[in-house]
């Protein structure tokens, strides 16, 4: 126990500076890598129509029903976009019904980005740290660092799973635990039972700490113990669940996310966001969100199955060539490509496939590869084979 605590302190506090700086240095929001691309590479990427496997997007984008709803939202004279939105209520109603919650359990955001920033703003301070794994999705850590709030980065455990014991210990006295599940970029999922145990444990050790469960990739999970933490959050103001329309619903470009929680937590977050919470949401996204939800669970199931097929195919391709991937429950994979991510990335880019950026501390051998369509993945593995010197019989067929 003592050893463990000591380790956490090392990871969390003593080494926080070093860890955080590499974490932040590499965080570059999703776009940082591409902003740094040389103009020639950018030009060539446009010329050859790149397969984008770098940002965990849905390759199909929004469904026809969603796009129809956007067109309808123009209004009969095309004048509706000239009005301030009056569709927030409609989306909140639809979302409430779909989740079985009330409107006071919900706050909307300009993507879950806004939700993550707001939670970090509200729940961390100069004396209340943010706790998260390293690596994980960097929005909260980057925001906390910008505010000068301490960040405790906890290494992952076996098989790239969150090390819940270390996380719980690191959570002591912290303001917010960022619990990204499935965890981006490593794609692993922690089952609902283990998550509930973790929450209980954190609150025994640190009753004031809030846990932000980011379920951005929730719809893609195929784990047997797959449950949302929304029911837990509804009962406990110290749990907030973040969701997004960017992934399974294919609406990354529309900027729509939300938080679900106890009314006290939602109120606290809305207070900071008031004036930009709803005013940052564009009217087309609000109508799109309603239409997306009205497709019902069958849509999500079909999307999960489609993604799983592409994931299974790609996982097998790497496994057949002796390359390990983590157990992915998301629309991306974390793969040991055996060479530095940058080398692999540049090699793929030169052949028209764009894969993920560096994720320290694993940038020397591991790469995040988002899943495109089955057809895109078939073309992509041919490129991977060429770049890694492992020609593919499957892809050649």
């Amino acid at each position: 126990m003592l050893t463990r605590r000591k380790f956490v302190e090392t990871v969390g506090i003593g080494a926080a500076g070093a860890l955080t700086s590499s974490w932040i240095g590499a965080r570059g929001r999703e776009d940082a890598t591409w902003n740094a691309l040389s103009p020639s590479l950018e030009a060539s990427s446009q010329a050859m129509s790149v397969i984008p496997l770098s940002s965990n997007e849905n390759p199909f984008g929004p469904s026809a029903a969603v796009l129809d709803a956007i067109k309808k939202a123009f209004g009969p004279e095309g004048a509706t976009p000239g009005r301030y939105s009056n569709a927030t209520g409609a989306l909140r109603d639809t979302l409430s019904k779909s989740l079985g919650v009330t409107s006071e359990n919900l706050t909307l955001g300009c993507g879950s980005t806004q939700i993550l920033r707001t939670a970090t703003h509200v729940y961390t301070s100069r004396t209340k740290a943010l706790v998260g794994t390293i690596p994980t999705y960097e929005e909260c850590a980057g925001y906390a660092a910008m505010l000068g709030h301490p960040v405790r980065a906890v290494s992952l455990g076996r098989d790239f799973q969150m090390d819940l014991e270390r996380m719980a210990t690191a959570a002591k006295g912290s303001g917010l635990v960022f619990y990204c599940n499935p965890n981006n970029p490593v794609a692993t999922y922690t089952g609902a039972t283990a998550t509930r145990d973790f929450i209980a444990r954190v609150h025994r050790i640190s009753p004031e700490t809030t846990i932000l469960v980011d379920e951005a990739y929730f719809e893609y999970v195929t784990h047997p113990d797959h449950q949302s933490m929304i029911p837990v959050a509804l009962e406990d103001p110290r749990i907030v669940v973040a969701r997004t329309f960017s992934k399974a619903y294919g609406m990354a470009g529309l900027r729509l996310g939300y938080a679900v929680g106890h009314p006290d937590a939602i109120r606290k977050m809305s207070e900071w966001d008031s004036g930009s919470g709803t005013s940052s949401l564009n009217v087309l996204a609000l109508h799109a969100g309603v239409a997306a939800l009205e497709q019902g669970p069958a849509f999500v199931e079909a999307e999960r199955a489609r993604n799983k097929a592409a994931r299974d195919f790609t996982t097998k391709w790497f496994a057949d060539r002796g390359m390990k991937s983590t157990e992915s429950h998301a629309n991306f994979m974390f793969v040991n490509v055996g060479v530095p991510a940058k080398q692999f990335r540049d090699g793929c880019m030169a052949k028209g496939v764009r894969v993920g950026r560096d994720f320290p501390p694993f940038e020397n051998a591991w790469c995040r590869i988002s899943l495109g369509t089955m057809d895109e993945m078939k073309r992509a593995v041919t490129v991977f084979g060429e770049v890694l010197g492992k020609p593919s019989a499957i892809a050649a067929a």
Partner: protein
Amino acid sequence: MSVTRRGFLSRLGAPGGAALDATVDGRLIAARGLEAESAEAWQQAGGRRGGPPAAPREGQPPSIRISSNENPIGPGQAVLDAIVAQFGEAGRYPFNAKVGDRKLVETIAALHKVKPENVLLGAGSQEILKTAVWGFTSPARHLVTASPTFENATGTARRMGHPVVEIKVDSQFRLDLEGMLTTVRGAGLVFVNNPNNPTATVHSAKTITDFVERVRRISPDTVILIDEAYHEYVTDPAYETAIPLAMATPNVFVARTFSKAYGMAGMRIGYAIGGGDTIKPLARLGMPYNISVLGVAAAIAALGDPKHMEAERTRNTEVRNFTQKALEDLGCKCTASQANFLFVEVGRTAAEFRSGCAAQGVQVGRDFPPFEGSHARISLGTMAEMQKATAVFRDVLRPANGTGGGGREEAPC
């Protein structure tokens, strides 16, 4: 600087800061309701999901929403076409889309002949305002603003617990820049809304330039935000944008929006322009991926279709002249409007005027303290809407309140 001024300013440092709020009517905050929030309220008051607001009573004419300074025409076909053409990119993040947010920054920069690093996009100019208050004010560095003015900055500062000094507009309902100057020393941010919402008045380019120079002399570290949301509607030749001034002056920047003359309030796109050293700290705080890929395409198309915006300006001027004359014929004085709304002395409380209009299907602006006892803000709809609305105003402004048919003459406000 006079003793009085110094005495006033010294209170800025006092704990609590309650004295600073002496000029503030407490109701301002209660009534602040951002434009979006009043749209929400309107919806809750009977508007239908996604559609136009419902008529308030059976048999009434369709409702007319002239409460939120919106553009009734919308963005135009070129913009709608651009949105549809971008559908294929709707699943991509704004930085990954084929026409991405950088392209919009570059387009705006080219329009104003500045560099991309001089431009920061916001989810509406509201995000710019909020970020500016957050970044430039603090418990020790107050916000200087007007009363009444667009309340977003005021509300944000109060929520953060940063002191606010509000200077009431002058007798012509213009920003009292002289009064504001007396309070700028040590301020974090000065908010200058030109034209000023809700009073609709403008200051000339020369007046703004002089003001900025004097602020810089008194308090060089104070940042000045000039919000030109209604810029495109101004017809006064003495007015000019402050963008060149901002580019030439440290700590000065301009906020603009696509919500007004470009007819895209629902798309949530605004931007800040200023020197790199002023924009950089704002950009650091700004929300990433804040503009949708459809919004990016829409804004680029809007800037590529200046004729639509110019037609909107002409249309607005005609409607403004018509409505102003109709109100003045009723004996109601309007301020010198340079925007897409009027600030009108209605001779009764705004609440009374508003509920009278609402009963006949016309939704006018909320309370604007300290003038809520006498003035209403009326946004300009289409000419057809304003013809109907002015008939309603005539009825509502009748002392016996119309329907009774008391036979009294139309009373002046």
